[in-house]
């Protein structure tokens, strides 16, 4: 199964996770894992998601999540897992 990593970085505010999750649920994207920390008011979240059952084209999803991030005031990036796998695993 090919997975996608979504990272959300920015100033903490109410409802960041809610809005990201609502978007994912609305597009048939399943969340496999979430880890989140707040360091000095800075919100830092990583999600591992499964997009295999989503009808969305990857590029569109990345653009829409990025636009959602702008709305909330955070940076949302959406990348296929392989780039991290390749870089950090032999």
């Amino acid at each position: 199964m090919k997975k996608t990593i979504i990272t959300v970085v920015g100033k903490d505010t109410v409802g960041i996770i809610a809005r990201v999750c609502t978007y994912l649920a609305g597009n048939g994207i399943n969340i496999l894992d979430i880890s989140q920390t707040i360091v000095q008011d800075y919100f830092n979240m990583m999600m591992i998601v499964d997009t295999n059952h989503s009808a969305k084209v990857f590029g569109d999803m990345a653009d829409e999540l990025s636009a959602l991030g702008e709305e909330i005031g955070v940076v949302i990036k959406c990348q296929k897992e392989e780039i991290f796998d390749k870089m950090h695993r032999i």
Partner: protein
Amino acid sequence: MINQYEVLETNEMIEKENLDVRTITLGISLLDCIDSDLHTLGEKIYRKIYEAAKDLVSTGEEISREFGIPIVNKRISVTPIALVGGAACHTKEDFAYLAKVLDDVAHKVGVNFIGGYSALVSKGMTPADELLIRSIPLALSATERVCSSVNLGSTRTGINMDAVKLMGEMILETAEFTKENDSLGCAKLVVFCNAPDDNPFMAGAFHGVTEADKIINVGVSGPGVVKTALEKVRGENFEVLCETIKKTAFKVTRVGQLVAQEASRMLQIPFGIVDLSLAPTPAIGDSVADILCEIGLEYAGAPGTTAALALLNDQVKKGGVMASSYVGGLSGAFIPVSEDQGMIDAVTAGALTLEKLEAMTCVCSVGLDMIAVPGDTKATSISGIIADEMAIGMVNQKTTAVRIIPVIGKGVGEMVEFGGLLGYAPIMPVNSFSCDVFVNRGGRIPAPIHSFKN
């Protein structure tokens, strides 16, 4: 499972340290286009390149979006045009017409450079080779995206000094033909010793005759990533230093390998090689010279520079080789002057001279690159500089190159602006003593003794 720390590290490399894939270069063989009629040849070339490369730019952009990594350039390299055009071209203008065809198709498919307006003359020149070389000034002044390269020597064959002499003249003529734009034509013209067949980087990319019909080669970059990694080991010994460079090069190269495989799959074109290069850009924090400073030099060019560059180059290769199944091209640290802010600063401060740069080229992957010299430099002096560099490559069994820009109408200390990735450079002084008699001897320098390995 990937953890948050690793994800953050990768994204910081991309966002703050200028990690990118410098180029996806599609190599296309034009040997099957050969025709004795010039216009038929032109049409065949246009059609073949267009069909092969029409999805190159969009595919590059798609991969870039999927992995969140910038892919800066999408480019094309073709079979050396001297071979392809030999049967059809009888004048300089005929060859320049083919350059125009290449330029047109490059615009059409949206690539920013197309390489392969080249001749391989390491031992001798055919009439077609010589005609192509003589057409270079015309071709580069009449086109925007065409890059030209000429292989003048190799460890196996020695150095073709007739061609070295001719190239000195052609470089000056190209400068003259493009003097309205600060002699920009010379920034798209490079001469080689031991030119690799699969180099994805411009201006020296061409698709060698030993290659398949089409091939994907990828050039990675990431001087900023290495610099940042080294900031964390300040004051540590060489073992720690080398280990850090190696690990970083591994990570950078793996990204290149991933992008190459993905591009190969999507375009259904075989994957050739990853070129493990540290290629700088004029952007702040994307400099090879800054790595040398981080290793412990006040400026690039200070005593110790050659040793620092040697270890950097070697560790980049050691880390990169493990990360990719096929490596090739130039693979190492590039030291262009105008494309590297740290190098520009070093020249301006008086720390870096042409002679020191020449010494540095003995231990790194290319050669005298993007060096601006006064416009009144003699053709024979340029040939002499080329001959020196070719000799370094020939004797050390490595690739060396010269991309030198005599800027017409400007003198030492003045600045010249090439724009974009080509950057800007202070004009450097050239040793003014004559080498006329040496260059004018004619003939070729025999291959060195260690070329006889059979």
